[in-house]
């Protein structure tokens, strides 16, 4: 690979990433209206670029589902027809006639979205049931805490056993908050090193480059 090719393919994107990252990060530490303005402009560029990638996303969605239709993949192609019709109806309605777009959003998208979210209640119930098996000291403590927390959230039981209230708050404020903060601090340190590896060009997957991870 020639130097020019290597620069275009590897070093150039890496250099752009480092410069943009430093400019975006500096206003957090350095007080400068100029840096603030440059950083804000870069962030606006990012939003504009994402807008462009949405078009690429829609092309991919169409491509994948047209392939499913062309191959008549069993159990999948009817869904692809529905998806393509709804996708382009919504898209065209959004450009041509806004009231129809708003109605699709309000009466189709929002209820379906709510329905999927509501499914979580059943999934949580099922997951809790799975997690409650007492197999070790850890799982016993976990089950005990789930019991205390559930009882405390039940008004009748909470009124019947007022001693649960201080236990609930103690668990929430001391061990839970402590463990949570510990994880956040550790994740932040890991993140700094991850960024450092990116800066020195060791992590290159985020530039769309294959090879070493």
């Amino acid at each position, binding site marked *: 690979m020639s130097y020019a090719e290597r620069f275009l393919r590897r070093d150039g994107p890496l250099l752009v990433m480092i410069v943009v990252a430093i400019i975006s990060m500096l206003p*957090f*530490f*350095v*007080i400068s209206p100029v840096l603030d303005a440059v950083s804000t402009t870069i*962030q606006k560029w990012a*939003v504009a*670029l*994402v807008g462009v*990638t*949405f078009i*690429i*996303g829609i092309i*991919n*969605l169409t*491509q*994948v589902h047209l*392939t499913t239709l062309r191959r008549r993949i069993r*159990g*999948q192609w009817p*869904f692809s027809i529905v998806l393509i019709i709804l996708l382009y109806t919504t898209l065209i309605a959004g450009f041509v006639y806004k009231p129809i777009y708003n109605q699709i959003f309000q009466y189709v998208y929002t209820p*379906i*979205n709510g329905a*999927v*979210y509501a*499914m*979580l209640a059943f*999934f*949580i119930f*099922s*997951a*809790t049931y*799975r*997690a409650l098996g007492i197999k070790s000291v850890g799982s016993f403590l976990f089950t005990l805490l789930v019991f205390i927390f559930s009882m405390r959230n039940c008004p009748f039981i909470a009124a019947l056993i007022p001693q649960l209230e201080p236990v609930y708050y103690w668990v929430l404020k001391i061990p839970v908050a402590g463990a*949570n903060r510990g*994880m*956040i*601090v*550790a*994740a*932040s*340190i*890991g*993140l*700094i*090193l*991850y*960024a*450092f*590896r*990116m800066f020195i060009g*060791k*992590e290159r*997957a*985020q530039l*769309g*480059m*294959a*090879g*070493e*991870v």
Partner: protein
Amino acid sequence: MVHNLFQNEAALFIIIAIMVLSSISYMLAKRGKKLALRRLKAVDFLDECVGRAAEMGGKIHVTTGGYGSLYSEYAPQILAGISAMNYVVSKAAALDVPIIVTTCQPEVYSLCDALVSSIYKVKGKPENYKPEMVRFLSGSQFAYSSAVLGILHREKVVSNIIIGMFAAESLLIGWAGKLIGALQIGGTANTAQLPFFAVTCDELLIGEDIYALGAFLSGDVLQQSGIASEDLVKLALIAIIIVSSILKSLGVI
């Protein structure tokens, strides 16, 4: 004068300290002095996921997250997921295991598509790359997760890699994978979602593990020495917290 120029000095100091420590450990590793390194079980598990898909003739589903975007504070988690995806797809390409990479963010889709096609070129199998391997499903969190549910149930998925930024959809995806009996590894730095991965996945990456995973997977001694220095910083912080707590309790500070 200098005081008026800078802000958040403490954070800046910590970042510089970690980078200096990391540089020192890099240099030590270059001279052949390795620091003690913990083991990350997830590294072997990712190989197991690919191996099982190869044995059973099934597909591997990889997701980098169903929430956030590359210009938000969640970007690092998504990028860490992409690092894991890079490794899994490389292994899958070598063994001719079909993969499905799904994304919720259009910008991540573009990135993943470029990466996957480049992996197949590097492996000398560009003809094996198909555009439908990487799919942008939806920009909406729940539309995305319901599409993933459909893929998991319909497309003979054997291994499910769920590493990245997840919110409420973590349980939907994890549970769907559990129902189909897929081998699953979940990881996120979003602490609220970790319990859901803990009950649905066979292997779990907690918080900073997802950032360290890339270094472990690379097998590069220089990168891994950085992880060792990270552990040293964590030990130092634990010591500081314990000493400060004792001193505070005694009324010294």
